[in-house]
């Protein structure tokens, strides 16, 4: 017996909920061969505004969680992702036109990335922090602290899941909250990842996913006064110099575009941290 196909209409992921775009707009997601796959919400600047508000509200809780706890939550994301491996593989194969075997390899790499970054959560402070030598009876300690709200343009056009994970996971390690614009042409894995995040232990608002046009959304995020850092990883095709200039108005941290999928690296974790140095008197022991 033949079954009717169920074409899905996906929504955004803001503040732990799945709202429609405020604008009511959506766009068609098509497979590599042009076949209709699903409808996705086309986020507007007001959705971006709402996402930043949700992210800001989530920062204190996420940054205030213990490093060990953050690591566990990130590891849990990898576990849930592992459980839905086949769904991701099928979506990627259909959407990007790669073989299912290639798609599985991409999902595995994405899961490995989550695990790798989860491990850093309670270790990066030991690597990036320091007990500084000072000429006086003081402890002088430098510790990295999260920057705050990070807006991300995910890599566009290739490896939609892996590219997304390689930019989102490192920002979460230190305790930042993220507003991410995923791959415009292949948003399915981003939406499914949002479902994974919603059903793992990540607090609502820590990651917000705005499917839609990076060209439309990025300028609003770059100029938004309540965004603290801007990752332009996938903005190479945009007027990213303008974005960089606009981000400078409010002294944002900016990571400039890079071709392809960024490698997993500690540098991406430390890019979204601010160093706090404290002096404390040595008392008699």
């Amino acid at each position, binding site marked *: 017996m033949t079954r009717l196909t169920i074409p899905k209409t996906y929504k955004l992921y803001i503040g732990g909920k799945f709202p429609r775009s405020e604008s009511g707009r959506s766009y068609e997601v098509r497979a590599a061969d042009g076949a209709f796959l699903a409808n996705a919400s086309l986020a507007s600047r007001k959705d971006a*505004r709402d996402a*930043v508000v949700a992210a*800001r509200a989530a920062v204190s809780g996420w940054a205030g969680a213990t490093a060990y706890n953050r690591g566990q939550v990130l590891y849990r994301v990898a576990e849930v992702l592992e459980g839905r491996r086949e769904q991701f593989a099928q979506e990627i194969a259909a959407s990007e036109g790669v073989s299912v075997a290639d798609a599985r390899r991409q999902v595995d790499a994405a899961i490995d990335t989550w695990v790798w970054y989860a491990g850093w959560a309670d270790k990066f402070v030991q690597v990036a922090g320091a007990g500084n030598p000072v000429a006086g009876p003081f402890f002088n300690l430098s510790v990295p602290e999260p920057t705050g709200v990070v807006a991300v343009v995910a890599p566009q056009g290739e490896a939609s899941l892996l590219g997304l994970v390689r930019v989102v996971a490192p920002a979460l390690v230190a305790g930042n909250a993220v507003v991410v614009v995923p791959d415009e042409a292949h948003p399915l894995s981003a939406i499914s990842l949002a479902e994974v995040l919603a059903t793992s232990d990540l607090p609502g608002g820590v990651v917000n996913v705005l499917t839609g046009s990076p060209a439309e959304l990025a300028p*609003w995020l770059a*100029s*938004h*006064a*309540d*965004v603290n850092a801007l990752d332009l990883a996938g903005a190479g095709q945009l007027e990213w110099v303008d974005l960089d200039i*606009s981000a400078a*108005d409010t002294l944002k941290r900016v990571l400039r575009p890079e071709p392809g999928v960024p490698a997993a690296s500690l540098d991406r974790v430390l890019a979204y941290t601010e160093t706090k140095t404290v002096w404390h008197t040595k008392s008699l022991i």
Partner: protein
Amino acid sequence: MTMQTTALAPAERAVRLLGGDLTERSLRQYLEGLSGVDAVGLEQRAEGLATRSIKTSSKAWALDRIIELIDLTTLEGADTPGKVRSLVAKAITPDATDPSTPRVAAVCVYGDMVPAAVEALGAAHGDPDDGLVSVAAVATAFPSGRASLAVKLADTRDAVAAGADEIDMVIDRGAFLAGNYGRVFEQIVAVKEACRRDDGTFASLKVILETGELNTYDNVRRASWLSILAGGDFIKTSTGKVAPAATLPVTLLMLEAVRDWHRLTGEYVGVKPAGGIRASKDAVRYLVTVAETVGEQWLQPHLFRFGASSLLNDVLLQRQKLRTGHYSGPDYVTID
């Protein structure tokens, strides 16, 4: 605009409307003779008014007008003179990054904080029509109103003597719900009399109905008329201490009472929704409701106010967005 209300002696309105022998019975007959409220129609009307889209220059006008209509409020047990001073500083200069930002209409504090507010305002203390800031004080055993009349009157006189320009009183909801309208009426009349200053002028009296405790729209309508008849200069929805506080349908209903009173007598009575209005978008809906119900002439500080604390920050963020073209954040307004 001439404020005919303040010139009248208390209860004169009721005598004019109900005749010389004002009794509990005639008051009850009048209030219970008011037509019932069509709840579905009222809520639909409010919902319809809330869908208006206000953009660009109208929005800029609305935001400035909202600021001019705000009673910037702090009503906490933990209020200190220092907190009142910082509230006053914000009332005088809401946005230090933009000197064109208008001042709020008034600061609203507990009675014992009135001297602190008056002192902090200094030369900026005065009529909002002149670009100055008034001092409003809550009185009469706010927020519950559970005290003897003598205590309520002393509370009111204290605040007026300390320099309060406006008194926000609460009605005795217990008496009202028990059907004891005469008691509520007499208390409002007595408090109005206690608002009299030594020079014979009156502090403006806002009567808080606490609609969240009145249960039905019919009760809100009766309480509105009762408060107007007893001489209230303003009718105010809520204390902000009870949920639900101000809602659009309740405010619409109170505006209708004020409108009908104006048609009947030509007098102007103000309305103040208070509590729960935090977003500019909500406040704009109230402006639309006022303009559509009683007319734009009501959008001035002597006839309409917002009782709010966090609303101001949201309006300032919206103003900054309009001015700079990009979204602003809570780091760019003062925390209070």
